[in-house]
């Protein structure tokens, strides 16, 4: 089978991204633990009193964790797709399913972003605004993200059709 250098480099890049996402996910979980400790017990680092606004930190950490977790899931699927591409044949039903899964993960992450914003707004409404000012929360749709979701769904359909044609071609004697 022919080796495609670009996909080979892409595979290495996605593997590296996957590794970084895992580290960031772990770091976010650790940060949420530290933030929780500081918000409950208060904290002092180097003589500076640290005030953690849990009303903002909690939803933000939740959102970040979800995004890094989503990135890990997306990267693992991209690795699988690029591995098949490296082998020379990306048109297999599994790749179509993986692309659809990536689209669903992206859509869920985007949906989760609105949920965390809603939670933040709810928390601020119930417990009051932060002392240092007010927080404006916008629920405007991210057209780039939704565009990517639509394109990925279309790509998955194209791969599904490609896989069907490839199978047809293999069974043409």
């Amino acid at each position, binding site marked *: 089978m022919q080796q495609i250098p670009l996909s080979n480099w892409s595979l290495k890049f996605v593997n590296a991204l996957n590794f970084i996402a895992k580290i960031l996910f772990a770091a976010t979980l650790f940060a949420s633990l530290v933030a929780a400790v500081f918000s409950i017990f208060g904290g002092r680092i180097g003589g500076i009193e640290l005030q953690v606004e849990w009303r903002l930190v909690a939803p933000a950490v939740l959102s970040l964790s979800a995004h890094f977790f989503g990135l890990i899931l997306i990267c693992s699927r991209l690795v699988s797709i690029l591995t098949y591409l490296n082998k020379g044949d990306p048109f297999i039903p599994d790749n179509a399913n993986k692309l659809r899964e990536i689209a669903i993960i992206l859509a869920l992450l985007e949906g989760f972003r609105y949920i965390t914003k809603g939670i933040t707004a709810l928390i601020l409404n119930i417990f009051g605004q932060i002392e240092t000012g007010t927080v404006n929360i916008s629920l405007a749709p991210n057209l780039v993200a939704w565009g990517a979701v639509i394109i990925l769904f279309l790509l998955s359909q194209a791969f599904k059709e490609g896989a069907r044609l490839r*199978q*047809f071609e293999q*069974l*043409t*004697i």
Partner: protein
Amino acid sequence: MSLTELAQSIDITLANLSILKTGKARAIRFSTLSNLCKVLKCQPADILEWVDGDDET
């Protein structure tokens, strides 16, 4: 004539001949059909039969 000899004479693999024989093939090239008829000394109608049923299979 054995299947191996037939496969060699019409220039397809034994695996592909098996796919043809078992009816799993989705399509057949004119060149393959032509070679088959040439080797077996027959007409396409002698080896092809239309059966009413599901078009997808």
